[in-house]
């Protein structure tokens, strides 16, 4: 954990909420698959990743899509590339 992590979670959730407004931050388990907790189809998921790309300027290879399963994975992925 750590504050650096926490600082990333909030904007990631904002991007998610722009796509799925019904998401409540506290209701998500960051260690569980995101798409089991939030109803996201392929287009939603792509838009979420596009949102991350635009917000953080991080290039997300298509081959990496499958690594981004839980909220924690997303945050770790961003941290590794923003470091």
């Amino acid at each position, binding site marked *: 954990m750590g504050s650096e992590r926490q600082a990333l979670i909030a904007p990631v959730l904002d991007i998610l909420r722009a796509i*799925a*407004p*019904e998401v409540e931050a506290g209701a998500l388990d960051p260690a569980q698959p995101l*798409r089991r907790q939030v*109803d996201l*189809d*392929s*287009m939603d*998921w*792509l*838009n979420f*990743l*596009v949102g991350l*790309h635009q917000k953080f300027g991080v*290039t*997300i*290879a*298509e*081959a990496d899509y499958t690594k981004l399963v839980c909220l924690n994975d997303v945050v770790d992925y961003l941290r590794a590339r923003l470091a």
Partner: protein
Amino acid sequence: MIEFKLPSLGADMDEGTLLEWRVKPGDSVKRGQVLAVVDTSKAAVDVEVWNDGQVGALRVQPGEKIPVGAVLATLLEPGETAAPSVIAPRLAAVPSTSRHAVSPSARRRALELGIDPEAASGSGVQGSVTRADIETLARARPAPASDHLQAMRQAIAAAMSRSKREIPHYYLSETIPMDAATAWLQRHNAALPITERILPAVLQIKAVALALQRFPELNGFYRDGGFVPAVTVHAGVAISLRGGGLVAPALHDVAAKPLELLMQELADLVKRARAGSLRSSEMSDPSITITNLGEGGAESVFGVIYPPQVALVGFGSMGVRPWVQRGVPRAIPLVTATLAGDHRVSDGHRGALFLAELRDLLQRPDALAHSGPDSSTDTEGSLPWAANAKH
């Protein structure tokens, strides 16, 4: 004189509520221009006009409920002169603009929530009321039941009941290897920024459109006791809405468009469908429906045909499963494609040939990316023009 009527916006919509006029009497309008915004159980629909002309009289006021086919306004044809006695009083009747402006999205949300949009304080451009203002106002008071959702559920039930009552469905299913298509997409997308990458669904939609060119009996409308084939493939794409329900607006002229353009248009269509803002042509044009369950969905889907269409193609969730090729079992991505067909127009034999064609096309993704329609096709569809009859 041309009568600008509320067009049919799909089998599950027989009336709407006028949200706003985008034109006033005397305005010149061009074919394809949005003249009015009408609320339906599924979306706020931008109603387009199919003739050039000049707006004569507006016959309906915002807030009025109107049935499909009702005259919303009269238009003068180019060159036609107005009878001044008809137009003049109407000009005077244009509502004053002293009330603050309300965005269509805000007006629709207000209608959903049963709120008077005029009661909201506007934070938008020049004090206009935005959707956010309506939400703010709504939070300040207890929310009423979601009438809109219930209306949509009833509309879907009515259309699907009609389908099951009138259409003798037959169903076929075919497993399609997606290894070639997946590998092609990976190669294609690897070189592109995330904003330009193509989803597998786009390849599938394009393949359906190309396959349909050899099977016109699956692409069109059953009307007045007979089948009317469509000139081009306007694919109705089933889009699930957040909070429930679905809508299947058209991607136009799919066979003629490159994959990149289809991807952009699909992304835009999904976004607008979810935001509740679609165009009348998108609601009335689809000549077939395609539903794609996508990742995490069920393995196959057998659809209910959306009348007056005569077929529905379903794609289940793609997944790596066992497949035998030349006697050797392999684990490759597979998708189950299904066809729900209308026995009044086609039969299972032709339907099976269509699915085989679809399967073959998806083995040649490069050809999908570079092929257009078989023949030069007339880009004029057959539907929306019927809605605005000339007199």
